[in-house]
């Protein structure tokens, strides 16, 4: 067994898992964090995307043992008990998701982008989301949601919010 102690969404957690356990499996089965999804399991679809030490990664492509002493942020770490994170709110407002399976990964990739680039171009957004596959939508509204999120997070009133306020 491999012993792992790591910080998940700000909380220190420990687990003892077989060495072949992936980060994704540990999140879902040991810590009951089922936001990150098991899609392709080989790093193509991005449904399992989480942020490790500030970088977006496919949690299906890391072994739990690699995470000892590191910090993981999952979709569960974004919202507070009564409020969505601005990126989640913008995805909702823009109607960016349909079935929603790709949503957690898509939003974590968006967060990783906006954490380092507060004002990304459309090309940069497309590049940042290229590792997240969605089979329902045409991606356009996700790109809009990231643009809106960028505005909200920069503190400029978002287009939709401004409209709602008349």
């Amino acid at each position: 067994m491999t012993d792992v102690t790591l910080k998940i969404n700000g909380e220190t957690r420990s687990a003892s898992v077989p060495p072949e356990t992936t980060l994704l499996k540990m999140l879902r089965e040991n810590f009951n964090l089922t936001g990150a999804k098991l899609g392709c399991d080989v790093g193509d679809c991005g449904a399992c995307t989480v942020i490790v030490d500030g970088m977006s990664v496919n949690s299906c492509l890391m072994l739990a043992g690699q995470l000892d002493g590191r910090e993981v942020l999952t979709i569960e770490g974004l919202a507070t008990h009564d409020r969505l994170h601005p990126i989640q709110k913008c995805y909702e407002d823009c109607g960016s998701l349909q079935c929603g399976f790709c949503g957690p990964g898509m939003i974590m990739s968006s967060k990783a982008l906006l954490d380092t680039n507060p004002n990304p171009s459309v090309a940069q957004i497309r590049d940042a989301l290229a590792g997240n596959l969605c089979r329902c939508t045409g991606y356009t509204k996700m790109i809009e949601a990231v643009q809106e999120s960028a505005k909200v997070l920069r503190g400029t009133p978002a287009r939709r919010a401004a409209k709602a306020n008349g």
Partner: protein
Amino acid sequence: MRAFEYFTATDSRHAVALLAEHAPARVLAGGTDLLADLKSSPSHAPKTVVDISRASDMRKIELNERGLCIGALVTHTEIMDSKLIAGLFPALIDAAHTIGAVQTRNLGTLAGNLVTAVPSVDSGPTLVALDAQVVIAGVNGNRQIALAEFFVGPRKTALQPDELLVEIVIPKENLDKPAHFLKFGLRKGQALALVNAASSLRIDAKKNTCRDVRIVLGAVAPTVVRAHSAEKFLEGRAATPENFAEAGRRAVDDVRPISDMRASAEYRKDLVAVLAKRTLEGACALARASKQKGVRK
């Protein structure tokens, strides 16, 4: 994934000792190729995995008396973010950017990409075009070989089971050599190359002739290959669009592409002619731009 024993190496020497002790073991660096392989081909399941992902050495990008040295654990994202590499070899950044997507570039390492040694390896052509060497560590010390010799066949390298690729070196005499990389895939993101190509050359300013020409192609032979007859044609000839186009046509005779689900061999040959020509033009444009910069100084 099948069960395996798991060891974490603290540095490259420790890793080599673990590999010797537990051979045959598989090395985990970025994991983007290894874990996908272990899941999709259970028959490849190793008894032991040696995790080098947190080894303390092999993470540097530095310029020293040997040239530009890139540690084995440097990721594709770190290459894209390196100001040092941006100043010397923008082609390496272009190549890194075409690999996978952000998540895989954040984990995947340059050495891992080379060690996997698929014929379409996107890190290969530019490095071969710059005569890169690889440093290989074993229990009895280090050895150094040309990257071109490191690729032996599809998914086969010159590495022995207890050896580790620890560093990639672009020799100092090539630090000013213009190089250009292009990849043609079916999509912009997450696509394997139908063909990838890199060229490097020097232009004699007075005579406008080419020398030290390297034309290197991927995904069109069992390994990354140099287009020797095309290189030979261009050596000493004038740097003109006509000669670049002719070199591109000749490069087609230097490759042996296959037909598969992504493209036919004929289509890949057409791509070879175009990409070889365009990478030569790109390298030539860089050569002229750096000359002008030199004159202005």
